[in-house]
């Protein structure tokens, strides 16, 4: 496939929505495509609640479970690598405005109805920081932030239902102070911007990477995926090309909202593990 190797890598975006992007990546090798997938899932920094200080918790859920639930809430992390520092690299005492987002939750139920504590109750609250402690070196992070950076995704957006944290009844309250920090999904899944990455190549199995098990008729039992329409079905008499390599990769990236789908794909292109493969190959992605 000498001819193909010279072809320029290309991306064809089939669909772009608020939380997902569907694109076809062509003329790259399998290892590159997969590393793209892996980076999208685990190597893009986002912010997520990392430390939780429970002031008062009279809900039915134990402290550590609430903390876990808080950690799972997606927070807006646009432009995360510039807008916030890694706490471990910050020179501050424990946490500061450059390396952490202070959030607090203070809900009590006074009605005789069940109250849902949701991510909408999370407030940006600088008082979470200890004023006695030194903050890190001056930086430009704050200017690079979008307005709602570090806020729960979909807050103040009536079209998006908030994330339920706990349900409380009359007389119960939940008061916690949280610090959201920057991190990678390698460390904990809560920092993953993607909820799923669909990945497919060779829908007709022309390369014979796989074998379809069947009872009577593989064509009847194996439904073709939608991506099969993009490629020509193999003719019955077509000889098997054992030198062929996968060329076209069908991606669908769904994010949890902390990063937009386009940002995810953009970031990947700049990621060192992607760029080491082919330095400028994805520079063309321009959306």
């Amino acid at each position: 496939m000498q001819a193909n190797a010279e072809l320029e890598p290309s991306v064809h975006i089939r669909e772009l929505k608020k939380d997902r992007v569907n694109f076809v990546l062509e003329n790259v090798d399998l290892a590159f495509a997969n590393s793209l997938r892996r980076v999208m899932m685990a190597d893009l920094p986002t912010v997520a609640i990392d430390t939780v200080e429970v002031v008062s918790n009279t809900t039915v859920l134990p402290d550590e479970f609430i903390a876990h639930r808080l950690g799972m809430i997606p927070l807006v992390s646009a432009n995360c690598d510039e807008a916030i520092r890694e706490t471990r690299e910050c020179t501050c005492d424990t946490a500061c405005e450059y390396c952490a987002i202070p959030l607090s939750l203070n809900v009590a139920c006074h009605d005789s109805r069940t109250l849902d504590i949701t991510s909408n109750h999370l407030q940006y609250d600088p008082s979470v920081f200890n004023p006695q402690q030194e903050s890190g070196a001056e930086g430009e992070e704050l200017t690079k932030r979008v307005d709602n950076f570090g806020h729960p995704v979909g807050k103040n957006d009536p079209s998006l239902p908030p994330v339920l944290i706990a349900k409380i009844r009359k007389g119960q309250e939940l008061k916690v102070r949280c610090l959201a920090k920057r991190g990678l999904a390698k460390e904990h899944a809560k920092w993953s911007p993607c909820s799923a990455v669909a990945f497919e190549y060779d829908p007709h199995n022309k390369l014979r990477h796989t074998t379809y098990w069947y009872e009577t008729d593989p064509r009847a039992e194996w439904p073709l995926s939608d991506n099969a329409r993009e490629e020509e079905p193999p003719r019955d008499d077509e000889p098997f090309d054992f030198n062929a390599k996968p060329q076209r990769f069908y991606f669908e990236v769904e994010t949890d909202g902390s990063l937009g789908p386009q940002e995810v794909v953009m970031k990947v292109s700049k990621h060192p593990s992607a760029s080491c493969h082919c330095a400028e190959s994805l520079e063309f992605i321009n959306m």
Partner: protein
Amino acid sequence: MPDAGPSTTKYRSTFRTLEREKKFRNPPKDGSTVPILNEFVTPHIESFDALFDDSGLPQGDGDGRGLLSLAVRDIGERVVFDGTGQVGTESGQSGWGNRLSFWIEQVSISKPRVPEKIKHANDIRVYPFEARERLTSYRGRMSVKICWKLDHQGEVERSVIKDCGLVPVMVRSVRCNLRGLSSADLVKKHEEPEEFGGYFIINGNERLIRYLILPRRNHVIALIRPSFVNRGPSYTPYAVQIRCVRPDQTSVTNSLHYLSNGSAMLRFSWRKQEYVIPIMLILKALVGASDKEIFEGVMMQDYENTFLTDRVELLLRSFKMYSLYTGDQCLEYLGDKFRVVLALPEDWDNLAVGAWLIQKVVLVHIQEAREKYRMLLFMLRKLYSLVSKSCSPDNPDSPQHQEVLLPGTLYGMIIKERLEEALNQVRNQIMLDVRNQEPSVDFFDARYFNKVLSKVNFDLGSKMSNFLATGNLVSPTGLDLQQASGFTIVAEKLNWMRYISHFRSIHRGAFFAELKTTAVRKLLPEAWGFLCPVHTPDGAPCGLLNHLSRTCRIITAPLRVSHLPALLVAHGMTQNFSPSIDGTKNLCVQLDGRVIGWARPQIAKQLAMNLRIWKTEGRHDVPLDLEIGYVPPSRGGQYPGLYLFSSRSRMMRPVKYLANSRNDQIGSFEQVYMDIACTPEEIERGVSTHVEHAPTNFLSILANLTPFSDFNQSPRNIYQCQMGKQTMGTPSTALQHRTDNKLYRLQTGQTPVVRPELHNTYGMDSFPNGTNAVVAVISYTGYDMEDAMILNKSAHERGFAYGTVYKSQIVDLKDAKGASRSMSAPTLHFGLGHDIRTEPGDKQHWCCKFLDLDGYPFVGTQLSPGDPIAAYIDDTTARTRFVKYKGDEVAYVDEVRILGSDAADSECQKIQVTLRITRSPVIGDKFSSRHGQKGVCSQKWPAIDMPFTESGMQPDVIINPHAFPSRMTIGMLVESMAGKAGAMHGLAQDATPFKFSEKDTAIDYFGEQLLAAGYNYYGNEPMYSGITGQEFAADIYIGVVYYQRLRHMVLDKFQVRTTGPVDPVTRQPVKGRKRAGGIRFGEMERDALIAHGTSFLLQDRLMNCSDYSTAWVCRTCGSLISLGYDDIRLGEVVIGPSGIPKPTGPNGEYCRVCRAAAEQEDERQRKAMAHGNNVSNAVKTDVRVAISSVNVLGSTSKGGDLDVVAVPYVFRYLCAELAAMGIAVSLEVH
């Protein structure tokens, strides 16, 4: 009664989420959330209710009195006399004096209440939650009315109410304050809406009396047991046996043994002592029967049968030696022999004693002597029939001849016996006083009697509590049971499944557990529909501990059957007193072990049919729960007859009667002679009599909850029944009101996508037991070998299978060091004393992080091992002392309960702390699907490394394909498909077994659904390696399977040790995880190392890492234990008596044996010198040393030549032990 009829509601493929949530938020105010749960414990509760007169149960044929009243009536009166049996002026003609009789008139148990001295309580009722939370028992006050009467003119009956202490009361029984409460009210009383009771609360633990299998009452079974021969000379293996039950449910077993001389002996036991009486004696004593009467009665016109005539002749002849001819003579003879044993009133004559004996031990279920006589004749006939091989022995291990010992029945039996004992003690006390001629004895004075009563221990409450707490039966009679312990169990709330199965478990008896033979454990076809074939543990209790099938009921209400004999006579039965019945042509008709008539086989069969139609249609007042066992005549089969059973404790189950399509209840006796089709398709015209309401009814509740269990290899379903009960699930919805020692909780339980219909019926959604996991069946990275499973690390981080363990720690200052033993004011008080700095700041005491000023821990505090959990001040020392958290892992304080005393009048001395331990899944934790497929988590791969499908789906769990071929759990594969389709379409998939057939297969049903969702028909999908991104060469079976997290976790089991505690005697590491001990490196492990030739490793394991020690050994005598020390300082030597420096080691070590020998030698030589005898050669002493003479260095080294060697310490110990026995061990050192 678990739903009798066929299910009327059609299966709905929804999860009923809203319905469920609504019910949970607003439990029904007029009934129960899950009514069926109340039904399945009815035998527990109703059997307890039956103890009382106001049980609310139907009256049956009796007068509606409770078992306790009946028991008290059966106990009868005790009689004492103030004379000593010597005729005197005071003591009347017989010498016995005044006759005082006393008896118990009435027994009552109240509902649990607060002690009477508390006047200010808002509610005097005590509810179970209080007992549970305060770690006390749920008890009601018991009292008896004791009456006494002096047999003297002008004396009236007098009575006194005697307190019997607090008796544990069954929750939700008629004596429980939760009786009849709706779910909404239950929640108000801090119970779960599903609370169904049936247990007792003892010291905060829920304990129940487990069902026990007993021989069927009032039915004669034929036995052939070789062991009967050992009973005495001329005994044979043949016997018939009947377990007779009195109206108060106490029983006596009568056996009739066949002797080789043709006669028979009646055996019974009285106070654990066995007695045998010739049957002729009884027959004559009962009705004064003549020999001819007996002959005719046994023969029943079968004069051709020479076998029978010969035996009966022998029987009659053998009795001639007794020279007893009339009934009264027999009674007097019996009375004379048994007078001492029975301890009856002294003024009774032998006749009365004999009559009493017959009344109390022979066929006690029958009152009338004539009927007893008839029944005994029947037993004799059956015995002879058995001996002549014209009928087969009955199998006592078959449910056909079994019934159930109900909790309430046993409870009543124990109370009866205790009351009887108390009464006997009163008699003994008075008799003792009379014999000792105590001056206080005055039968006319009520004070004397009251004084005697106060001396006797009437505290039944503590005895009953003890019985329930230990399960041990302390009984002088043994209650006609084969075991004395193991009656009660803890109803562990590990998870809901385990909890509910306790109430359906039924044990064969502790006696059988020790039996070598496995015949009793066998699953018999007779058990179909009564005992679940699947739900039994594997291992030691296999087949002995069973569980009732889902629809199996146990009859607890008495039935009205007194009109049945007349009804049957009207339809062709010959009456039982007819003089000339041909025994060869007629079958015996019995009702509850009474002969009620005779009928020819055709008529008997017709009668059985009529009765069945009547009972199913409710005509002629024939109760539905009547069991109609028609045993047809056969050649050498079961002894024929028509046996009707109406008694309690029988197992019955609902089926459909085909003749009139009505619901019928059938018992385990009659089922053997029925033809019951499992499904309507199986009905055979003219053969089938009944059809099952549902083909799954023979399974227990738990077995029914295994999805697609009909696809699995049967042992896998057995394993699932075990593992379902070990699952970390949702034990309770009222967790904050529980104080269990250990509770496991799955934080993120889900309802299974694939579930049988009964999942809803039993309300299992209130107590989720696992999570729906995406499972790929693939061999990936090798970490899923040998039943290991790979967990998706990202799924785990998102909360997959996250669990919590709740433990409780009790701090009781009464048990603390320094507590005052007296009942006066306590000297220990919870709190922080003045010696603790509590004000915040640097100088604050470290304990303030954990404890509040009151000495209790803060709720939510993290505790590490050794942290303080409570503090108290000791008055005597005025110092604060801490109680430490005793666990070995980090825990959080979840709840602190301050427990006061019963009367709420003393200072708090006891707290209970619930601790929460987080248990996120880690490598080494155990998981299982619902198909007996358990596995251990071996690796947690991050999502990027997990394989994925084209749609980007990644499995939560990866299991190895090798888990399937040998285990054949096809049900799991089907569940995977069904789960996947259900998840895609939003369906709750019906996984009830036996729904599919060969023509309508599950694969096609779910395959179509998958195809509709865009998947492969058979559930496979192409997958890609997460590491390389390459498509796998094979497509992968991936679907959704419900996974359970089992309670076995590494954190509870891991054992590591480098150094640690050693045994003081052997200096080897101790064993046991709790003590930080080591793991035994045993013989076989040693063999392996020897075989490998790894001698260094061997030495390291067995010596260096175990009990390595160095020891001084004497080269001269080879002794290890003769080490002595001279006190020397550097450069000094000890000079012996002979002036020569004594040879020692560098620190003065020497061999005491050698030195003593040398000194002795010296001494001898000196003496020889003194006497002038030059003895060059010493007298040869007996040489004990096994050293070759080359190595003996001679007497120059007077004190031995010591050397250090490395030996295991136990070896030194062994040498010392051997020396103690006079054996010397000698080492040769090279």
